[in-house]
Every structure is written in C-alpha cells, then in structure tokens.
C-alpha cells in the first residue's frame, strides 16, 4: 500500500511538472509576452521598446531556463541597467541586489507577483481559494448526498415509477449547463420581471457573510449539473448490482428488501460513483468559473478569468499549479478510496 501511494505521488509530481510546463510554455509565447509588455507599459510601444522591456524582465531567455527559474531550480535572472541598478525576480523593491537570494521559485515558496492585482500571487491565491473552498464545501454537501440518494432510489427497482421519474430528472439536469441553469434561476428567483425576488442574483455579499439569500443560487447551480451525472452513474451501478447473482442469493436467503439494499447492494454499488465523484473535480472547476463569473463571486474561478484575460503570467501559473494539484490529489484519493471500498483489490 505504501509503495502504491509512493508511486502514485511520483506520477502526480511528474504530471504536475508536465502540465505547469505546458502552461508556462503557452503563456510565454512571444505574442503573449508582447501583449503583457503593452499592457504593463503602454499600448503604443514600438517593437524595440517591447523587446527591451522584455529583455529587462528576463522574458527573452529560453523557455526551459525560465521554467527552471520559476520552479526554483535555476538561479534567477538579474538585469543590470545601464546606470548600474540591478533588477530581478528575486529582488523585491527596497532590497539590495546583494541581499537577494539567488533562487526564488515555487520550491522556495515564492509564487511571483501579480501584474493585475499588484500583489503577491501566494496571498491572492490563498484568499481566493478559501472563498471558493466555502462554495465548494456547500456544493459537495448539497450535491453528493442528493445525487447518491437519487441514484440509489432510482436503481433499486429498475423500470419502476420512481426510477423513470428520477432518471428523467437526472437526465434533464445533466443537459443543463451551469450558464443555462444559472440564468434560469436568476430569471425566475431574482429578476424583477418575474417578481419572485426570493434570492439575490449576485453573490458578492456572500464573500463576507454567506447566507441562504445570497448563496443558495450559486451553490445549487453548480450542484445541479454534477448531481445529474453522479446520480445516473449511481443508478447504473445500482441496477447492475441489483441484478447480480449475490443479490438473488441474499433474497433467497430471506433477507428483506431494505436490508438487501442497505447491507448487500449499497457498498458494492457505491464503488463506481465514488470514483466518478472524485473525477468530477476538473469539471466542477468549470462550473466554479462559470458560476463565480455569473454571480460575481470573487473566488478562485473569477481570479482565473482575470488572470487569463489579462495574461497575468505569474498569477495564471499559480492558478494552474493549484488547480492541477487539486485535480491530482482528488485522483489520488479516488484511487485509494477505490482500493479501500473494494476488498477484492485491497487484499491481493
């Protein structure tokens, strides 16, 4: 088991390195850098000015070198201006060049400086991530239990009235992406055109004090889309288990129907959806970005949009590192959980 986790962690680090390099490569393509220079300097910069601005920032080195600097495995770039002042990534304003550390990258805990928010990337990500964390917590709390209950109820008796109805509900929610359901919810529950005005159409105030009025719509919007999918998976897995020979054995042993479901079917039926829930995370991030934009909730997803829209390289890299790590960690949990839930694999 230990060896297994070790191998998984190894693969995870390799994946993270590959992915961040891809992000690094794409953000550092020359047209992107040019755009960065122009947004930072001014929009009418000549090509030479752009080049010298980039030169000064160390952007014109080879991509692998820059990547290593960013990771913290290569000494970081320093630029000596004609007047002798030395600037560089590691030299924060007010620091003498001699005192600055040679390495400053992710490994050293330095995530860079956001050009849009004019703040340390690490602190931006920390605050934004915690906001999204709250959102996700509620989403999971709503989505997972309701999806599982829905799926189990539907799959318990295939073809029954409950099954048909719940399956229809599940299919409809999977067919409704967040930007559609979100718009519908706002239209129905918060617009003056319909006039219900039960909830708020924006979640900005939820950043300080989340309550039912300002937080329910965003949470439900994300949860609904994922819920249908998980519920359908659970249903499929449940119907399969319910037709298994060992369920018949249990039935013919005289076990009552509720006990068959709870004691015999449930654990076997939950193996597949568990993996699905964990692998849902990359998609959930999608929903987070859409919903945070739609409801103006300034969390992690909103930051991603801002960083990407403005080619804020360091922030974008930070965001990618975090999102990739989140995805990979959930995958690891899913693998371990799978092994844990499934005794056939655990003891072999």
């Amino acid at each position, binding site marked *: *088991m230990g*060896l*297994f986790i070790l*191998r998984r962690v190894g693969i995870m680090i390799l994946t993270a390195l590959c992915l961040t390099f891809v992000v690094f490569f794409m953000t550092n393509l020359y047209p992107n850098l040019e755009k960065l220079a122009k947004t930072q300097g001014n929009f009418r910069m000549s090509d030479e000015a752009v080049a010298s601005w980039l030169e000064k920032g160390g952007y014109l080195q080879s991509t692998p070198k820059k990547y290593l600097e960013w990771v913290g495995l290569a000494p970081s770039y320093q630029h000596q201006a004609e007047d002798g002042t030395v600037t560089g990534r590691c030299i924060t304003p007010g620091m003498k060049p001699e005192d600055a550390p040679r390495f400053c990258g992710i490994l050293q805990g330095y995530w860079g400086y956001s050009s849009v928010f004019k703040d340390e990337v690490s602190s931006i990500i920390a605050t934004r991530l915690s906001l999204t964390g709250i959102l996700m917590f509620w989403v999971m709390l709503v989505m997972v239990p309701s999806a599982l209950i829905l799926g189990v109820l539907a799959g318990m008796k295939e*073809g029954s009235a409950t099954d048909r109805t719940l399956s229809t509900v599940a299919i409809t929610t999977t067919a409704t992406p967040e930007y559609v359901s979100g718009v519908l919810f706002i239209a129905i529950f918060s617009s003056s055109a319909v006039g219900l005005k039960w909830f708020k159409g924006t979640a900005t105030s939820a950043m300080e004090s989340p309550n039912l009025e300002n937080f329910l719509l965003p949470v439900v919007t994300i949860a609904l889309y994922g819920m249908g999918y998980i519920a359908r998976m659970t249903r499929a897995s449940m119907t399969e288990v319910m037709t*298994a*020979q*060992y369920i*018949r*054995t*249990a*039935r*013919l*042993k*005289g*076990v*009552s129907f509720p006990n068959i479901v709870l*004691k*015999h079917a449930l*654990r*076997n039926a939950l193996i597949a959806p568990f993996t699905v829930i964990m692998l849902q995370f990359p998609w959930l991030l999608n929903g987070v970005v859409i919903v945070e934009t739609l409801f103006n909730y300034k969390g992690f997803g909103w930051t991603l949009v801002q960083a990407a829209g403005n080619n804020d390289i360091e922030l974008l890299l930070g965001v990618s590192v975090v999102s990739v790590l989140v995805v990979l960690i959930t995958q690891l949990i899913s693998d371990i959980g799978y*092994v844990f*839930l*499934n*005794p*056939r*694999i655990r*003891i*072999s």
Partner: protein
Amino acid sequence: MNKLSENDGPVLEIDKLSISFFTRLREIPAVMDFSVSVQPGEAVGLVGESGCGKSTVALGVMQDLGKNGRIVGGSIKFKGRDLAEMSAEELRDIRGNEIAMIYQEPMASLNPAMKIGRQLMEVPMIHEGVSEKLAYDRALEVVTDVRLPDPERMLNSYPHQLSGGQQQRIVIAMALMSKPSLLILDEPTTALDVTVEAAVVELVRDLGKKYGTSMLFISHNLGLILETCDRLCVMYSGEAVERGSIADVFDEMQHPYTQALFRSIPLPGADKNAHPLVAIPGNFPLPHERPEGCNFGPRCDYFEPGRCDQGQIDMADVAGNDRHATRCLRYQEIDWNAPITVGAQTEKTEPGDVVLKIDNLKKYYEVAANALFGGGTKKVVKANETLSFEARESETLAIVGESGCGKSTFAKVLMGLETATEGEILLDGQNIEQTAIEDRNTRTVSDVQMVFQNPFDTLNPSMTVGRQIIRALEIFDIGDSDQDRKQRMLELLDLVKLPRAFADRMPRQLSGGQKQRVGIARAFSGGARIVVADEPVSALDVSVQAAVTDLLMEIQRTEKTTLLFISHDLSIVRYLSDRVMVMYLGHVVELGDTDQVFSPPYHPYTEALLSAVPIADTSIEKEHIVLEGDIPSAMNPPSGCPFQTRCRWKGEVPGGLCDSEVPPTRTLEAGHQIKCHLSDEVLQRMQPVIKIAAE
C-alpha cells in the same frame, strides 16, 4: 422464527405447473404442465438440455421469477401449503430457512464486499433471531461440516480469497445454516474442475443424509444425477417427459427422448469406429416455435404422423414400476430393447508418418508477484515442463487435464501466439518453436489451426458467416478470385453439413452447434493438417455434442488430419482418441495408447480423474477415490512431484522422495510413459477404477 409444522406428505409437491415469461410482443411459455413431488429425505434429479426450463422450475419454487415471469397455472405446495398464496413476509421466512438454493457460479453468488462469516451468520440471525455469538458458533460448525480447512480464517476472509471449490463449499454451508427441509441445487458443479466436482458431490450427498434434507438436483449431466439422486425427472422443451426412480429410468426408459439422450453420450464401450454415438437429429425448438402435439415429435425416431402431432399429450403411468410416468403416446408399442441401429461403422484408420514432434518443450512466464501495486519481485510460472511427444498423421491425441494444467499454454506455443522458453517443436522436421505467428509462412499457419471452446465467442458477432470463412481463405492465399473463394466457402459449408444459405447469416442467428460447425469449417479452410481442438464440445448440449464430435471425426478421416483434442472429459476422450496424454500443473504425468491409460497401472492422478468422472450407466461400478483439497496454483506449485499434495499413494514411496524430487519419466511398456516415483510392483497392484458389473 419457527419452521412450518411437519406433515406426512411430500416436502415439495409441484402439480401441473406452468410458467410463462411475458415480453412486449408475446407470452413465452417456459414450463408447461410440470409435476413432480419430493418426499422427505429424497433426492430428485431434474435433467435436461439448456433451455428446457429446469432452472425456471427452481426459480418458480423460490417464487423468484423476476419482473416478467409469472406462474400461469398449477400449484407449488411446500409441506402442504401453496407457495403462491403466501404473503411476502411468509415467503421470506421460508426462503433460506426452509428452502435453500445453491447455484452454478459460486463466485457470483457470494457478496464480494462482505466477509464470509457475516454472510453465513446472517441466515440464522434473520430467521431465528439468534445472537451474533450463537450465529458465529453455528457458522463455525457448519464450515467445519463442509470440510474446509481452518474454519476461523475462512469466516474472516472475503470470497475472492478462496478458490472455486472452497467458494462452492461456502455456498453449500450457507444453504445448510438453518437446516432447511429442501435444498435446490442448480448445476452446482458445472464451474468446477472434475476432481473438485467429485469431492463437492460427495459432500452434498453425505450432508444431505446427515441433515436429512430433501434435494432437488438440477443438472444436464446424467452421470451426476445417477451418483446423487434417488429419482429423476427428464425435461424436454418446457415439459417433463419422463419421471421415475433412477433404476427405472436408466434401465427401463419409456420415452424416446430419454433413450436418444443416453445413446448420444459416450459411455464406456462406445467406440468411434465400432459403436459410434447416435446424435439426435434436428434442433431444440425455440419456445415460441414448439410443434403441435409432442414437442419431441419432429426429432423422434418413432414419430407417427397424425397421432404424435395432435392435441395435448399427458403423462401416463408405466404399469409395474414405482411412480414411473412418461409423456409418450406410443410407449407401449415401442420395443425398448431393440438393438441400436448402428450408424455407419468405419474402419480404424492407421496413423501415418510423424507430423509433429515435441521435444523437451518448456514454457515459463514471468509475472509480477503483486498485480495491482506492480513492481517488486517477479515470479516465474512454469506453465509447461519438459513436454515430449509425437503426433502422427490421422491420429487423435487427447490432452487431458484440469484448469491450470498447461494445456492451453501448450496450444498457444504450438500456434505461435507465444514462443517456447526451451525445447523444440518440429513440424515436418522444421523447428517452429521460436517462430511467432507473424513470422510463419502462410503454409505453416494454415497447416496448424484451432477450434475453440466457446461457440458463442468463436465467431465475430458483426460479420456474416460467409465473410468470416472467406477472410480465412484470403489470409491463407487460397483461390485466385473472389468468385473462386466464394465457391470454396460454399464447399466448406457443405463439408460441415450446413445449408449454403447460412453464408449470409449473422452468427447470432445460429445455434451453438451450428456456430461450432462454422468454427470447424474455418479451421479447415486452409487444408489444415494439424487441428488443435480446445474442448470443442464441452459447452454444447449433450445431443449436439455427439453430432459435432462425429463431424470432427469424419473430416479427420477424409482429410487425414492430426487432431490434438484438449479435454477434461475422460468419457469423450476414451470414445474418440487413439492416444492420451494426461497433464497436471504443466507436467505430462502419463502418456500412452487409450487402452494403456484407461487400464491399470495408472498414474495416481489419472486414477483419481477416472474415478471422478460421473458415468451415466447403472451397470458400472467405480472405485471411489476423492482427492483432498484443490489444484495448487501454478504460481506456487508444490515442491517435488506436482501431485504429491493430493496423492493417495504417497505413503508407498519411501524416503519422502515425492516431497523433494520431481519424478523421472519412465516407460512401462511400448510407448506407455508415466511420471511417478511408485515402484513397478506397487503399480502392478493397482486395480481398475471402472468395472462393468457382472450381469
């Protein structure tokens, strides 16, 4: 929960039961007018081919027919009470408590995510409301009863940690947990190896006696029924056709189907040349295409038009016998003792030159010791150890062994799907053991072909039959044009006695036997000289088996093919092979002419195997040899002789030689080889396992 009060009558009484399944289009009758009764302590066999409705009867008794199944007529009385009139609660009290069921697939019928102890303890806890402690003690006791080693560890493990034989014992233990009055066994041993099957059958028989349980034993194997039951009921196409005591039905059968069934199974004495099997002509009717009158009519030798194809035919009691009934209008007119009109007898063909020579062949695999977590140590699995034999033209060499004996690996190496680790395979004097199939020339590939076991898997489901044969012809470079190949394909269909119209059919439109024929046609499409038949008939119904076997024999005779017949069924091996090779855990333990192998001296394993095979003949007396335990895993073979863990002769070999050394191959008489430490005099002492009782 208390059991139902005892009554004097039969434990189970099924009267004129009819069960139908309802689909969107039509009602499909699965069982019609079926009656049988089981007396206390009696074991009743239910025998028939697949699709005859025998499992439906069992599920009907359990009142578990699913969404679409309904009892549409008749009654099932258990201890005098009609099961159909019971409420769901009453029924639940009976299931598992009074009637228990054992199924075909032990692995599938145990919950994979629940410890075995829990699954066993559940039964008394539900039905008798006993405490966990008591239930555990009961479980321990029953697990000991089913002769499983280390019961406490067993209770604490998950189903997948046990071997197939052990799992089936657990399923039996589960059924016996609350000492039911009726035990229904639905093909309980089909998924098991022969020697394991023998042990399980013996266990069931003994426990039935010990607990006084009545049994309903469902099987397609007449031999097995003979060994376990007191009475039997033969089913055909949803109906009971004959019912009576074992002795009556086996020796004084009164229904043409029963007779035909017996004539199509290879009993000792059958011989492919002198006494060929008689296959039942035609096919099993589909449930919605049953003929008027007698269902068996169209395939019956005694069919009388105008009489057998009209109206309903009822069961009629046979006078003079105990509760012996038959569903035949003409049973009194037929001369049941008339000698079999022997099929075309053929000359024994003389084997020709040596075509294939295997010398010291070894095949080892390296596998990771731990499949999931990978890495770590590698283990060597010795799938084939020093195989040496020769096969001649138009000779049938049977390779006999149970799962894990290495017969399939050998087939792979011979076909070129794997390359040998050591040793030689000589085809016409040329080495092919290291040539993978991609590197073999077309001639070599088409010379060595294979017929597969599972008819439902052997044909590509999305290609027409004709296309599949033509593709083989293309690959083997036969025929110059598409027209040519098409012609050749039609001739091949003729060869395997299929109508030419089948060329445009999809495999799903064919029956199992027909698919197997297409498989044979495909194998012979390139004029194969060596055909490896991997259990070609074991998945087929008894009546179809005979026809397919005969077809193989016939083609072999005309084409002078060398047939390597892989099988675990010694009856059929004795029937058709010229020479036999017995394998165990990768070793050839015995090799010789059919007569040499089937008569003493035996290798101890061959002896046990012979004893394990059920024979459907009341005049046969078998010596009773039951092997302990299961077949060891090839991943972890025992030291010394591979068979030493289960050998009953081990004590006769001095000095623990069996534990330490692999025995050498010895030649006893002309061509009879045996791999055993037993001394010649011990071997001479061996008695024949199968004796035909003096009339």
